[in-house]
């Protein structure tokens, strides 16, 4: 009995020690930012590239706009992984699609995730492999569609679209058609091999599938929210001032990209080449790819609440989302600035 008690006490101490090991550093001056190697993360890619090349007096865009802070960048394939990193406190802010952000918001009962700003609308599409006779939703019966990751924005859009058109696609398989989460980088090869019949993905993968596999675009939703800027409540609480500066810097960057599309495209191409470890002689191809992908998306800096509510409905119809607290509560309300508080 004594030994049993001793074991338990040991376990209890162990757990309590573990609780103290937090990755939260309240006074850290490093902003850890996440983004994906997708053109729809254009603000992230441009800022990251500027940071890589230290464009502004040996600083990146955010470092330059937020004095006293440095940036650190992280790459994810799709939203669920990015949200995992947010929960695990390994990133502070991330560019991410609305569905994973909503899921993280719902899972944490509205306690953990806040949206700072909008980033990009559109840029996603459903593509059908070359030579397949698929022209309407009903033709997808018995077919398989790839999406970037389970529960990511395109995955939810795809499942909701199928359900809206009367086709079932349960997670466990065995429905009218199969939705197969497949990393973006693998989709081209699997489509070329005939393992998947269609693909719901984002730029630049849309243009790549179109150009390299001859896939045809069947559905495009140009006004749907594709990317937002999300953050952790813990970080926002400790850095309210920085958060405001970060939002302002993001908005300014969005405006800059809007005004300098060609320069921005060069940054995106260069960054994607770095992230995908591509060869220098592929640069022209990358630039061409990004240029044609560019027209399919719209830059924004506001959060489209109605669009998010649609995603909540879509997520619930597919069974990927349970109860979601009111979406309005997900928007970050900046702490009052000391200067404005004086008025």
């Amino acid at each position, binding site marked *: 009995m004594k030994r049993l008690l001793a074991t*338990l006490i040991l376990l209890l101490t162990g757990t309590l020690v573990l609780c103290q090991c937090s990755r939260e550093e309240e006074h850290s001056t490093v902003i850890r930012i996440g983004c994906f190697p997708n053109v729809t993360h254009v603000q992230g890619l441009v800022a990251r590239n500027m940071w890589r090349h230290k464009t502004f007096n040996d600083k990146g865009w955010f470092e330059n706009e937020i004095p006293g802070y440095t940036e650190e960048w992280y790459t994810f394939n799709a939203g669920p992984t990015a949200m995992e990193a947010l929960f695990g406190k390994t990133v502070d802010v991330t560019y991410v699609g609305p569905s994973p952000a909503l899921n993280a918001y719902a899972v944490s009962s509205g306690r953990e995730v806040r949206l700072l700003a909008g980033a990009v609308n559109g840029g996603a599409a459903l593509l059908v492999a070359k030579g397949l006779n698929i022209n309407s939703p009903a033709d997808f019966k018995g077919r398989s569609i790839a999406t970037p990751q389970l529960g990511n924005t395109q995955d939810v859009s795809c499942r909701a679209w199928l359900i809206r058109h009367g086709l079932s696609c349960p997670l*466990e398989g065995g429905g009218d058609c*199969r939705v197969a*989460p497949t990393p973006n980088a693998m989709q081209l090869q699997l489509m070329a091999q005939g*393992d998947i019949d269609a693909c719901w993905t984002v730029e630049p993968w849309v243009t790549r599938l179109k150009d390299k596999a001859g896939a045809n675009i069947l559905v495009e939703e140009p006004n749907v929210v594709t990317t937002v800027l999300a953050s952790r409540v813990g970080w926002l609480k400790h850095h309210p001032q920085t958060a405001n500066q970060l939002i302002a810097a993001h908005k300014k960057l969005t405006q800059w990209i809007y005004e300098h599309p060609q320069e921005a495209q060069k940054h995106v191409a260069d960054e994607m080449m770095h992230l995908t470890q591509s060869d220098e002689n592929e640069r022209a191809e990358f630039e061409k790819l990004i240029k044609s992908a560019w027209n399919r998306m719209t830059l924004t800096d506001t959060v489209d609440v109605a669009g998010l509510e649609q995603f909540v409905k879509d997520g619930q119809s597919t069974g990927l989302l349970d109860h979601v607290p009111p979406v309005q509560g997900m928007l970050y309300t900046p702490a009052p600035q000391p200067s404005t508080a004086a008025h």
Partner: protein
Amino acid sequence: MKRVLTTFLFFVLLILLWAALTGDLQWLGIGPEEPVWNPYVLPPPGVVGHYLWDNIINFKILNAMGVTLQRLLIGYAIGLVLGVPLGMLSARFRSVSDTLGMLALGLQALPSVCWVPLACIWFGQSEAALLFVVIMGTLWSVLLSTQNGMKNVPPIYARAARTMGSSPLHTLIFVTLPASAPFVVSGMKQGWAFAWRSLMAAEIYVSVVGGFGIGQYLHFGRELQRMYQVIGIMFIIILVGLLADKLLFSPVESWLHRRWGTDKE
């Protein structure tokens, strides 16, 4: 009886500790006011139990267990059917031992989940890819332990049999094989452990293939940030592993011990 009670008490206390720290015992006034961990980091046992109960009565988990066990058994059986004869050949002929034996030694050092990227390209995201990974996990360890077992049979057995007029084939089947059985069986058990681990890794790693196994449930729990699902499935995986050990190997091992006169009773 006292030992059983101690074990039982230990696990009950462990679960109570978990419940107290995650706020499941608040109604009794036990545990900290705010749960030490948020429920999305470490869900309370009640939520995990609820998930398991819901998904067991709607047969989802049982179906997934069926799919996983089918993959495991087929892959394992193929691994055995290939591994045991190859191991025997490798023990008998030096040239096979120098070639295939060395290859097995090298590949055994490679965790079979490393085969997943190639398997996905070679076989597509299909059952075949998963089977391949399981076979790669089983084959080499079974091959090596069979080879090892046969080599460890004292040569005097075979010589004695031959002086009594036993033909080479007869010697192999009735003398060498039974004599090497403990090694072969422990190799089979090791092969099983490798197969089970590699299948779980592969199911978590490969997104969706034909059927939906329990590893995929765990992976999907991760993607949707449902940690209660992850923990629930971990319990199921432990259960399947324990059951396989108790149902498949324990009887064979105790039979072997009896035959070899090494049982303690």
